[in-house]
């Protein structure tokens, strides 16, 4: 098992390398030379510029530039400087706890999705073809079909224009009120964060619910038709015991294994939501960098998302191996 984990983890490196080459080429074919624009910017001194040129070989051919860029990342962990903020790329991408917020939003949404999807899926399966089953399925599909950005706009419009929450001293965008930034953790702050987070959870969470509900429902229906469930019923066990103790335990396995796979979708789904609801996430940094053609930050951002994706896949593989003992590791 340990060798399996190590091998799978190491396998991420060549993949990341190729993704880095792809994103590097993509950014380099973008029209508009960054050096020309940086020269026009009076805030960037000729000295700083020259240092960047020397370090990243910006006056050299494409493949040499890629080599310099890669070498700088591997040997010094240096992704270069942001031409927009004049700070190191890492600071720009992750400024103000953006990494933590990104991870927090992804994990909390994931948790809530499972918290709701599993009971709803069980309910849906045990009430198969009843009106309530159809209603649940319909709402699941509705959540799947609403574009995240449109849902976010709708929630924003409802809260601000229709319910006029501003009149009650409540603000909507961001993850907390301005006055709570940088203050120690208090109950007031937690409540404030929760108030700001529920639209985020609603918007991002609903888009993946339908898939989870369907999966849970389908698995449970399959399991409920197996002979051992029939045996349990024949023994005279209560229906709740049959469902929850015998069937659900087996039906839940596939959901556990795809847990890692939903993580990256949550992160990229949250990019659009973050832009509209002004959430301090890496997605927002990425969008801003793209808007300002801040090439170093864009490349680092692409690598970050790719890493997140691969980590999600990795977690899924581990979960599968852990939950199902029949999987061979070698």
């Amino acid at each position: 098992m340990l060798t399996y984990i190590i091998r799978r983890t190491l396998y991420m490196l060549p993949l990341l390398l190729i993704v880095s080459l792809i994103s590097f080429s993509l950014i380099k074919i973008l029209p508009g030379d960054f050096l020309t624009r940086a020269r026009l910017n009076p805030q960037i001194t000729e000295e700083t510029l020259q240092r960047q040129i020397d370090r990243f070989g910006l006056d050299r051919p494409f493949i040499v530039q890629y080599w310099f860029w890669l070498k700088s990342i591997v040997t010094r962990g240096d992704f270069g400087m942001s031409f927009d903020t004049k700070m190191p790329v890492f600071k720009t991408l992750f400024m103000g706890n953006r990494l933590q917020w990104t991870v927090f939003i992804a994990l909390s949404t994931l948790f809530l999705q499972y918290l709701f999807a599993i009971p709803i899926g069980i309910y849906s399966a045990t009430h198969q073809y009843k009106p309530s089953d159809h209603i649940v399925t319909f709402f699941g599909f509705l959540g799947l079909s609403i574009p995240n950005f449109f849902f976010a706009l709708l929630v924003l419009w409802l809260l601000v224009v229709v319910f006029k929450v501003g009149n009650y001293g409540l603000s909507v965008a961001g993850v907390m009120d301005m006055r709570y930034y940088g203050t120690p953790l208090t109950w007031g702050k937690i409540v404030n964060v929760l108030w700001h987070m529920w639209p985020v959870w609603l918007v991002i969470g609903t888009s993946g619910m339908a898939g989870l509900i369907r999966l849970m429902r389908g698995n449970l229906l399959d399991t409920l038709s197996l002979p051992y469930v029939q045996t349990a019923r024949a023994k005279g066990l209560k229906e709740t015991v049959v469902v929850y103790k015998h069937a659900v335990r087996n039906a839940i396995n596939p959901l556990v294994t795809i847990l890692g796979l939903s993580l990256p979708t949550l992160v990229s789904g949250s990019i659009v939501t973050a832009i509209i609801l002004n959430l301090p996430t890496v997605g927002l940094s990425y969008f801003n960098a793209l808007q300002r053609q801040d090439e170093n930050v864009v490349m680092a951002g692409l690598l970050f998302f790719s890493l997140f994706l691969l980590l999600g896949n990795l977690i899924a593989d581990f979960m599968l191996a852990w939950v199902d003992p029949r999987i061979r590791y070698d």
Partner: protein
Amino acid sequence: MARLSRKKQKAQRQMEEQGYISRSQGQMIWQAFRRHRVGNVGTIIVLLFFVVAIFAQFIGPYHYSRQFRKHSFSPPTTVHWRDDDGSLSRPYVYATERKIDLTTYRVTYVEDTSKKYYVRFFVSGGSEHRLLGFTATVHLFAARADDGSEAELFVLGTDRLGRDMFTRCLVGSWVSLAVGPLVILISFPLGILLGGVSGYYGGGVDMFIQRACEVMLAIPGLPILMAMGAALRGFGLSAMMVFFGVILALAIISWGGLARIIRGQVLAIREMDFVTAARAAGAHDLRIVLRHIIPNVTSYLVVAATLTIPGMMLTEAALSFLGYGIQEPMTSWGQLLNAATNVGSIELHPWILIPGAFIVVAVLAFNFMGDALRDAVDPYSIM
């Protein structure tokens, strides 16, 4: 439904007389599909959307880029059903005029109630458009007074430049609906070919293609599409080229998953007896793949295609909304929502959110259609 030859029909009738019911695979799929009520409604809505998209310029009263300079951000025109004395009347509208409140600088549109403009159908003399290959000036409806003068009728209001949102939504549906099928037209052959070759031949080819798939699956979808969109935009291409660029970009990043699944299916089917039999009979590789293996995955492909379309529509909408997808003068539902990026604008002109409703309904309909198809292609399962 599968057409049966006369001989077969006769045989079937004889069977039924003896109390047997025989159904072909196609008939069973069709029956299972018909049982899925919501899926049927979804299919009808999808077909309706395509019909509306084809006749967009006819159903919409104005040319989609005509600017009514005096009617910027005009709200939907009120259609009146009752006369001044309260009795029912033919539907009519009033001409509106822009008034600016000099204290708040809020723009309102005031009705001029001196003249009624009745809503008439199949009116000619409007903007020119192509209809079934002909140039026509006839539109589904227009508001005209008895003396022939015309008033503006904006069913869903206008945008910043005073363009009719209703027409733009209909015309935009063309792009929004075309994106999914066009992406599939590229990504499916690519995925089927690479997945098929990978599964059928195995060995070094398989190894190479599978590593390529893994790279494709390691690329973060939306972020890379945004970067590609920025590149397309930066090159100063025409709107049509950007449209094809977006489709190509979507196709390039989406074939990996399909290729993997096709590979798995081919790998399993390759070992089946009928393939061995075909090989023993001297069939060459291409024939085996095309005549024996592909038909076995067709039903899966149809379902996968139907369920891929709504995802593509959502991605295109998000890209266009962010400004990295469809560019002016072309338009799509997501691109129309691009005007609704800040809450202040939505507060003053809530009707600019309406294109979002088109997205939701179309994507929902596609999802239900795909769901019904998925249940139907396996007609032997107990429903």
